[in-house]
């Protein structure tokens, strides 16, 4: 039963993605024949840049390819054959039932919680529900730094509670270290995001030394270290040019 | 063995209403080698208007096969059959006949009235005439009070009566009854016999297959005896009895070559 629950959970998670694209989605046959253009799950939309999304769109638009015969050409009138996203206000709510069902079927699929929470708070203004879902996910997956990272975003971006955001992100960092030490395969993508957020938060709070420390760690894992180095340099300049009173503030630690 | 014609009822100038000419019906199995079984072999007979004609034979004699040929259910191998001078292969040949099959079940979800209306429409009876016609036949078979009840609630006798009613819905000139009293209790049999007599008195022609010799003797003008697909005798019941100096049952057994103690 366990495996089938996971299979169904994966199916419903994909279903949410299908809904996000208004039914325009490649089948396994399309993927097999067309070099399997990957349609990223909704979660990744949170991290991707406009340029990245543009690239994804052009890949998706082409998964059907030109019609192979008259039946293929004719049949394209009867199913969604144009790329589309749920981007009208509130439309994103339509993906939620499948994510809820996926979470119920497989509570250990962390991605379900993070994706659902992202859409709830970012596009549907349902911060309470997002927080509740993430807490539920955290209970089921106490070692998940991904959920903690997302929860930190709720506190930081929606609750504007820097203290709690810092707490959960630092906790996420700890969990990340534990898991990386255990697995030996560090998930640098999430680490990068945690460090970026922490650095931004500390900089915003005026804890420049702390921010610099996070940026230096980020430089080590970032795929674009030059950009991070630039940020470090900018921050250092800011520290130097700041009035002494503020500079002393930079010595404070951000620990709760 | 050629059929023993006792007498014919053919009247000068009268055309047969039903005519079978040198009919052969064979069927082949789907087994390897395709064995052929002859169900009816060179059968010829005629039935004239106003007659009650009994078609006799033991089980497996070919009676039902012959009836099925007349109704177009079975293709003929050789020969031909005509009803009202129309080859039975043509569906229009069945416009003026009524058929009562042996032990038939009708659409159980319909009421008697709906069933008769359905068949009346197939006969293209004008809409205005359907209602009175249904009333008439239901009264005739004594099902008037049960006309609104679904057929699934009918007893066996009632089912046989609704069978008769459907056979009469088009006021047929020829009625083909296949073992009409089969499975009925004595009262039911008597009712069917009375019905046949009543139809005869109305000038209808009745062709009925049976192995119930008692009722054949009671109601039939002429009979034909079939055995192993071949016609063994045909003629008036009285002539047959006279020829064999015995009752119809014994005459029948003699015709088919049955000797007690020898199967």
């Amino acid at each position, binding site marked *: 039963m366990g495996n089938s629950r996971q299979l169904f959970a994966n199916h419903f998670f994909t279903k949410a993605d299908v809904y996000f694209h208004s039914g325009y989605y490649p089948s396994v046959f399309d993927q097999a024949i067309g070099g399997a253009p990957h349609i990223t799950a909704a979660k990744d939309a949170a991290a991707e840049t406009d340029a990245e999304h543009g690239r994804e769109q052009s890949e998706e638009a082409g998964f059907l390819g030109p019609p192979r015969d008259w039946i293929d050409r004719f049949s394209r009138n009867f199913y969604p054959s144009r790329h589309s996203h749920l981007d009208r206000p509130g439309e994103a709510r339509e993906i939620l039932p499948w994510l809820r069902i996926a979470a119920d079927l497989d509570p250990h699929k962390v991605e379900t919680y993070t994706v659902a929470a992202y859409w709830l708070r970012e596009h549907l203004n349902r911060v309470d529900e997002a927080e509740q879902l993430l807490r539920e996910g955290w209970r089921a997956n106490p070692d998940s730094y991904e959920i903690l990272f997302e929860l930190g975003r709720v506190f930081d971006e929606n609750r504007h509670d820097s203290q709690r955001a810092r707490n959960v992100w630092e906790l996420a960092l700890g969990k990340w270290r534990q898991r990386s030490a255990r697995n030996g395969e560090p998930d640098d993508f999430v680490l990068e995001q945690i460090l970026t957020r922490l650095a931004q938060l500390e900089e915003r709070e005026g804890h420049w030394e702390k921010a610099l420390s996070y940026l230096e760690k980020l430089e080590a894992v970032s795929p674009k270290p030059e950009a991070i180095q630039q940020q470090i340099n900018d921050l250092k300049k800011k520290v130097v040019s700041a009035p002494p009173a503020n500079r002393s503030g930079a010595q404070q630690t951000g620990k709760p | 063995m050629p059929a023993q014609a006792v007498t014919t009822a053919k009247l000068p100038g009268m055309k047969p209403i039903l005519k079978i000419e040198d009919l052969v019906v064979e069927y082949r199995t*789907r087994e390897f080698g395709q064995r052929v079984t002859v169900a009816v072999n060179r059968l010829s007979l005629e039935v004239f208007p106003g007659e009650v004609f009994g078609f006799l034979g033991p089980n497996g004699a070919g009676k039902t096969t012959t009836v099925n040929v007349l109704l177009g259910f079975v293709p003929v191998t050789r020969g031909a059959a005509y009803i009202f001078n129309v080859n039975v292969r043509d569906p229009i040949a069945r416009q003026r006949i009524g058929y009562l099959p042996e032990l038939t079940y009708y659409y159980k979800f319909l009421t008697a009235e709906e069933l008769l209306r359905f068949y009346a429409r197939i006969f293209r009876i004008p809409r205005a005439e359907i209602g009175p016609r249904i009333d008439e036949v239901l009264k005739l078979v004594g099902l008037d009070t049960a006309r609104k009840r679904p057929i699934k609630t009918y007893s066996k006798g009632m089912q046989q009566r609704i069978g008769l009613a459907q056979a009469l819905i088009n006021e047929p000139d020829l009625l083909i009854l296949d073992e009409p009293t089969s499975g009925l209790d004595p009262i039911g049999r008597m009712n069917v016999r009375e019905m046949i007599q009543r139809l005869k008195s109305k000038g209808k022609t009745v062709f009925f297959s049976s192995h119930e010799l008692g009722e054949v003797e009671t109601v039939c003008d002429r009979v034909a005896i079939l055995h192993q697909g071949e016609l063994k005798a045909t003629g008036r019941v009285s002539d047959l009895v006279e020829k064999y100096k015995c009752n119809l049952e014994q005459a029948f057994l003699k015709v088919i070559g049955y000797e007690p103690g020898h199967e």
Partner: protein
Amino acid sequence: MNNALSVASIVIKELYRRKDFYVLFVLTAIITLLMGSLHFFNDDRIVRYLKEICLLLIWISALAIAVGTSARQIPAERENRTIFPLLAKPITRGQLIAGKFLGCWLACGLALIVFYFFFGVISVSREHQWAAASFFQALWLHWWMLGVVVAMTLLGSVVFAAPSSNGTICLLIILSILLLGRHLNKVAVQLAEPMSGVVSAVYFAVPHLELFDVRDLVVHNWDPINWLICVGATLYAAAYAIFFLFATWLVFRRQLVLRWQPGCSPGTRVGRAAALSPIACWAS
């Protein structure tokens, strides 16, 4: 036509007097309402999942009704011996086939109207808007698809003796077409000859029932299909339905109505093979 319509009226009466339709409708309604009563993240404006579930149930129910009703028509006539008094009347076998088809198809149409009305009520109550054109196209195309299904199943019912085996085989074929039909050309490309040719031949030969499945367009509120395309699909379905009906008639006109009954025929030497065959034998 009169005879065919008379037969059709009996088939329709049968459908609404049997429990199948009511059971399927009640099940569809209960499951949809149950799913509709769920509130995901306290948002009561979520509707597409409900539309999808309702349409899926409608499709399953409609297929069950179409295949179930058509598969048993001619075998049941034989089994209950109602075919004898019927064919003893001035009705041709072609008219009987046409009547059975019309009856099953119209009965499916009536059932679809009830189901889609329910679907309409559910979607309007949630969405507060009614995409009438898409809704009508979905119903129309669905009905024509069932026309092909009914004709195909009727053909099966004169080829296979048992309604259950016919129903199962037809359902398997229909579901395979619905799920794989669209992709057979892609599969063919990946295969080596001669399999590629065989799959391609199947792709071009089978009726593409999946064309008529516009659920995704309705669920995700896409624009209606071009009406000319809709007409094309209707003609496509009509062509296949006529082809299957013609094939049914060709098989049925050569079939004996009766089955051989063991021990009743003279000089019986007919084996089990013949007893099982709907074609070879009749009662004597």
